[in-house]
């Protein structure tokens, strides 16, 4: 006899009285119903932000990067701040789908689809910044190692900026493949339920003709497992390489070996915060509270308090090492961070990233939806300031005559707003036309972790160990 058993002490991952069919009904409902007013309004706002962003970028390309308020010392400004911020956000999805898969964390199934989608959109947003920063963007393909008539002259393969090109594009591709391979069976579900001709044809194409054969599922499981194994070091490598952009330079405040682990922790921290922001709203609007439960939210808040604390320790270590190194320039760089012209950014970062997430040590607050939503915004503001603080470290270089104070121009702000437009436009389309929760994966854990199935586990709970073992070893 086939039995899936999990202790009743563990919180159910799917609430309510669910059957396999009910799971399908619940998750497909949004896709099959007409878009709501709220969705239409949200979508239009996002699309107009995107349009404004496109205008700002067009302006920048037409007049050149001179329209940005970059100066002699601040060469990266808001642009690269936003790049690093978005890449960081794009870390939670693959962490949830890959690392938590390897660690067999059942709760990932409720949130992985949306988190992965968010990852892909965030990486898309991130990619915009370095590309448009090139100014002569029509020459952007110069970063690729292709045969050319200039020698051939190749890109510098030992430059961290080129590593970034490879890391971000690989990360985007692999995340997309991972996400899409999981979507294929769910698209097949939508296809077979479709009532209208167009929907049937469209989901027929995107489902690749999936029928659910046992052998295909076996390969699908293998594919997911190996992709998870590949993505796990990939997630860690991407932000490590982003941190190399800074760490391999010989700039006081940047040239530190702590950067890779501290960037990765920060990335997971901000990524989970963004997942919370989106899912707290998504579960409410799409009525998915039974699949994205308070338990899921609490689990993610635990990750936030852990990574937030790691980031906090990293900030303090940086300060200590600057003091302990005895290097004048290093000490001055950190004195300026804390007390210099950009002191407000440093303290905003400290408050949002280190102090406020500590409130998540209280179980009551971890399980409070509104508090979680509020905190998720705070964390993302904090993480934005972290990147801003690092990039602004250059405002005083070795030549006092070039010292300056940088503020962004409207095109830089517009570009940043535009990236929100891109992100949310994609997310709104995703939430309407894609299964927001991995249908097949929820069904897979339903009998172990569904509330109504867990309630039936008492008879096994009461068995003696010997009896239980005896019964289980003679499975099918």
């Amino acid at each position, binding site marked *: 006899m086939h039995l899936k058993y999990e202790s009743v002490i563990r919180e159910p991952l799917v609430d309510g009285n669910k059957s396999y069919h009910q799971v399908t009904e619940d998750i497909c409902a949004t896709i099959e119903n007409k878009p709501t007013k709220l969705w239409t309004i949200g979508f239009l706002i996002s699309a107009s932000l995107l349009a404004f962003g496109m205008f700002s970028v067009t302006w920048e390309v037409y007049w050149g990067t001179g329209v940005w308020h970059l100066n002699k010392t601040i060469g990266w400004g808001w642009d690269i701040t936003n790049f690093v911020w978005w890449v960081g956000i794009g870390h939670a999805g693959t962490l949830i789908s890959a690392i938590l898969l390897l660690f067999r964390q059942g709760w990932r199934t409720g949130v992985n689809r949306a988190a992965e989608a968010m990852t892909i959109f965030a990486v898309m947003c991130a990619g915009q910044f370095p590309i448009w920063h090139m100014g002569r963007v029509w020459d952007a393909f110069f970063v690729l190692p292709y045969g050319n008539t200039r020698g051939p002259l190749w890109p510098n393969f030992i430059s961290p900026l080129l590593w970034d090109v490879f890391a971000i594009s690989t990360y985007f591709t*692999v995340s997309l493949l991972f996400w899409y391979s999981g979507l*294929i069976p769910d698209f097949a579900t939508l296809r077979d339920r479709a009532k209208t001709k167009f929907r049937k*044809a469209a989901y027929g194409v995107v489902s690749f003709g999936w029928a659910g054969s046992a052998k295909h599922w076996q390969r699908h499981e293998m594919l997911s497992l190996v992709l998870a194994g590949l993505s796990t070091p990939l997630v860690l490598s991407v932000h490590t390489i982003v941190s190399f952009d800074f760490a391999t330079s010989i700039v006081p405040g940047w040239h530190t070996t702590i950067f890779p682990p501290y960037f990765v922790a920060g990335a997971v921290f901000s990524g989970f915060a963004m997942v919370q922001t989106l899912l707290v709203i998504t579960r409410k609007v799409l009525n998915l509270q039974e699949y994205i439960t308070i338990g899921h939210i609490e689990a993610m808040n635990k990750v936030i308090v852990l990574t937030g604390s790691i980031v906090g320790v990293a900030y303090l270590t940086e300060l200590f090492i600057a003091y302990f190194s005895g290097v004048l320039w290093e000490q001055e760089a950190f004195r300026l961070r804390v007390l210099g012209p950009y002191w407000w950014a440093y303290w905003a970062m400290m408050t949002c990233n280190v102090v406020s997430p500590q409130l998540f040590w209280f179980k009551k607050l971890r399980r409070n939806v509104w508090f979680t939503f509020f905190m998720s915004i705070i964390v993302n503001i904090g993480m934005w300031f972290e990147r801003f603080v690092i990039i602004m470290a250059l405002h005083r270089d070795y030549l006092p005559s070039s010292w300056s104070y940088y503020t962004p121009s409207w095109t830089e702000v517009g570009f940043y707003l535009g990236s929100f437009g891109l992100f949310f436009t994609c997310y709104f389309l995703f939430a309407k036309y894609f299964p927001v929760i991995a249908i097949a994966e929820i069904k897979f854990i339903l009998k172990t972790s569904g509330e109504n199935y867990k309630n039936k586990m008492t008879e096994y709970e009461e068995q003696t160990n010997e009896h239980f073992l005896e019964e289980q070893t003679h499975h099918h």
Partner: protein
Amino acid sequence: MSIKKFAVAVYDDEAVLFPAVKKVRGAGYKIHDVYTPFAVHGLDVALGEKESDLHIAGFIYGITGTCTALGFMGWIFTTDWPQNFGGKPHFPLPAFIPITFELTVLFAAVGMVLTFCYLNQIMPGVKKHIFHPRQTDDKFVLVIEVNENTAKETETFLKTTGAEETNIQVAEADWWFGRFDKREDYEIQEQLA
């Protein structure tokens, strides 16, 4: 194209499916395929399927990526266009690691997904026969290939395995290019007959 006749049994739970598979195989029937809405663990073993070798393919693709990256960068830096970057060596292995790693992962992932699609014969525009409209929802469908003589007897046998529904279908056993919103010729013929 190979249009064949199939005896189909529909089960509503994997707990019913497992004993049924055992019984069907025990009685000497050859199972054409079993369709499930999600990955049912242990079903491949129950069906006597071999373990997938997809991971071996993945390893080979990965190694290809490693060699491509190291070989290409090494060739460029030492042979094709040697340059002096701040007096660093022409084959700086540690500095090659990031790109080598990324290409390893990229080759392995892309290669595996393409192999996965090839082995399963799936791609956009491919159509396969769906034996039960809810086999991707909550039904577990077991299919046995039959001929004129064995159809009746097989269906009767399937009824004894706990199936909630059994039937005989004429269907294309393979895939073909088609649209899911269109009915196929054989489906229409079947209805007329």
